[in-house]
């Protein structure tokens, strides 16, 4: 792991290793982001519903 070049090349297997890590990262990040965004959406929607029902 002498240089950044060597690190990225992954001994010739760069495509396989980095695709694997890339898809994994994308999946994990998307799941978290979706959860947070959905949470905010639901809270906003419920608050709107409550405001409408208030006398």
């Amino acid at each position, binding site marked *: *792991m002498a240089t950044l070049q060597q690190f990225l090349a992954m*001994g010739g297997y760069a495509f396989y*290793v980095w695709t694997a*890590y890339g*898809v994994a990262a994308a999946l994990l990040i998307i799941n978290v982001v979706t959860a947070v965004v959905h949470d905010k959406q639901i809270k906003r929607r419920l608050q709107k*519903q*409550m405001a409408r029902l208030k006398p």
Partner: protein
Amino acid sequence: MWLWFHKLASPKNFYQIANKIIPWTAIICLLLFGYGLIGGLLLAPPDYQQGDAFRIIYIHVPSAFLSMMVYICMAIAAAVHLIWRIKLADIIIAASAPLGAGFTFLALLTGSLWGKPMWGTWWVWDARLTSELILLFLYLGVMALRSAIPLQESAGRASAILLVVGIINIPIIHYSVYWWNTLHQGDTLTLTGPSLIAPGMLHPLLAMMAAFICYYVTVMLMRTRTQILQREKKSQWVQELLSN
């Protein structure tokens, strides 16, 4: 003991407990990922047989392990839901299903990406990969069934039945696929993993497994939290919470 169990199952209590737990599991998850990635990508030496391609193991093994673990969690929740009619169990199933399916897909994808440089083909009817593929169908079946049934309570019960029947079948599926694979071993290559005796290789793997577990717990609790708010929107504590 039952009192504690039922207190935990109350949505309001669970919501508050989840709120307290999530920051901690999130932090632990990030630390474990950091340790695992640095150890796995940078510090561990390349395998003498597989070179740097073996590093895919740090994604493949944890996601395969999680795909099984999440299904078992869902099956336990399903049994709880059917026996004690605890709605929270159903919420946990709904929150876990997409995560489990995602882990299974990731395990299959990384398995393929690992297999291509090692065996020369994108897909091998290896016992593990074939079992994982069947597991993906199990997940998709549960998710499809849940979305197909319009009534939420009925969808919960139906998917719970499917999960309980499925968990009984998983050992059978695994055994039969392994047996089938060893029978035809002449045609396919078996997965020879790298030697994991070196602690430099093992420790990052354990860290990544723990990181994935923490990740699942964190995101599952986050999604459960949201669903609790949705389902309990008419209750007073939710209304008080939201009006702040």
